[in-house]
């Protein structure tokens, strides 16, 4: 009795979905849509409902990734007039093993990792320089010792490009940390192109390029958000050098606004 005939009719319904393009197999249609640059995707979405769901589908993203037509975008979170708006409900998690300020945090494999921003002046603290948290009902666990040089040299926002951790130091220079050699190296070749002090700068890995963002001067009423895209490479002598590919104002915001976060997203 529970097995109603309508069940089978419902389950067979998706099979009757019309093709994306009449008379063309969907895999061919997908090949065509995947070659339309993402900038034009809103217009593809308007063609029909099935086009809209395809544009937003993981399948189209996979096809575009394989074709290398997927693109990276920068997402900026700005603080304007010192007001933040939070849309999520926050809950307090368990205490970390080390007290931190301005630490880096990220999510990987369903776990949250926090590192830096703490004193490592004794053994107990140094083994907790980086710690992980597996979610509800879990405790933090220490991740082991950190190379002292790495901790001392790491300032502010950082980004990893080709296994080198880059950050911006007090003297206004970009430096990269070589994990194998345990040494910080100055990024050569970018001095002339970049201003001496990058106000509230942040960095991000944008499709293999080091992207530096900072607040520029503007006209008094507004602030320019500047962006430099830098190609970084290892030199024969083991040093690091960069080439500024572009440097421009990417956004103009009201005075008093500041960069809070920056993310590179591929889609």
């Amino acid at each position, binding site marked *: 009795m529970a097995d109603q005939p309508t069940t089978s009719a419902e389950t067979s319904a998706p099979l009757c979905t019309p093709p994306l393009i009449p008379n063309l197999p969907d895999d061919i249609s997908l090949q*065509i849509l995947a070659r339309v640059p993402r900038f034009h995707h809103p217009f593809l979405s308007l063609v029909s409902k099935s086009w809209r769901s395809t544009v937003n589908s993981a399948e189209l993203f996979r096809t575009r990734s394989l074709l290398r037509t997927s693109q990276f975008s920068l997402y900026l979170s700005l603080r304007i007039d010192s007001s933040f708006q939070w849309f999520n409900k926050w809950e307090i998690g368990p205490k970390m093993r080390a007290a931190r300020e301005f630490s880096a945090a990220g999510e990987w494999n369903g776990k949250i990792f926090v590192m830096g921003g703490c004193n490592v002046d004794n053994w107990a603290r140094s083994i907790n320089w980086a710690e992980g948290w597996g979610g509800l009902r879990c405790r933090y666990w220490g991740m082991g010792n950190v190379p002292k040089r790495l901790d001392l040299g790491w300032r502010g926002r950082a980004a990893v490009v080709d296994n080198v951790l880059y950050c911006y130091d007090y003297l206004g220079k970009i430096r990269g940390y070589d994990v194998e050699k345990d040494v910080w190296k100055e990024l050569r070749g970018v001095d002339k192109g970049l201003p001496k002090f990058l106000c509230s700068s942040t960095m991000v890995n944008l499709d293999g390029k080091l992207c530096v963002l900072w607040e520029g001067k503007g006209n008094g009423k507004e602030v320019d958000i500047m962006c430099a895209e830098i190609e970084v490479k290892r030199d024969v002598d083991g040093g690091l050098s960069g080439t500024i590919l572009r440097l421009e104002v990417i956004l103009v915001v009201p005075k008093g606004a500041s960069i809070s976060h920056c993310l590179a997203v591929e889609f």
Partner: protein
Amino acid sequence: MVTTDEKGPLTAKKKSVIIRSCDGDEFLVSESAAVLSTSLKKILEEKEDRLIHLSDIDNKTLAMVIAYLSTHADDGLSDDLKRSFDQEFVSGKEFDVLKYLVLATDTLQVTCLCYTVAKKMADIMKNKLVEWVRREFDIQNDYTPEAEAEIRRLDAWAWDDRQLEDD
């Protein structure tokens, strides 16, 4: 030619196949060109018959695909020349022609031509109005006017300063 025959009688004469379109036209194609199509290659492996009848590809489209296959089978042409041939091959072709071509590449399984045509179609489409795309592909608009207006509102940024064509 004579010397070639004397030196290598086995390789002197290239094998050919005849391919017939759905409207009855026949094309003589070298086997080396035909086997660039995965479907034709399979057919040739399975049967001795040198005549292949394609029931869903018309003569104009078939002629274009064969020109493409023959160029790509030509060992005397460099890869650069083949690439510029590909660009010229799709340039200036009507959207309708490209639709038949892409469908034929699916039937014949000629992946590289399929991708070249798909790229050209995408390039044409991106500057067209939504209505144009629906008309060319014969796609029914299944949005209600309200739903369509809502999507246009959500992605309003995408419609600024855009010059879209309807022909």
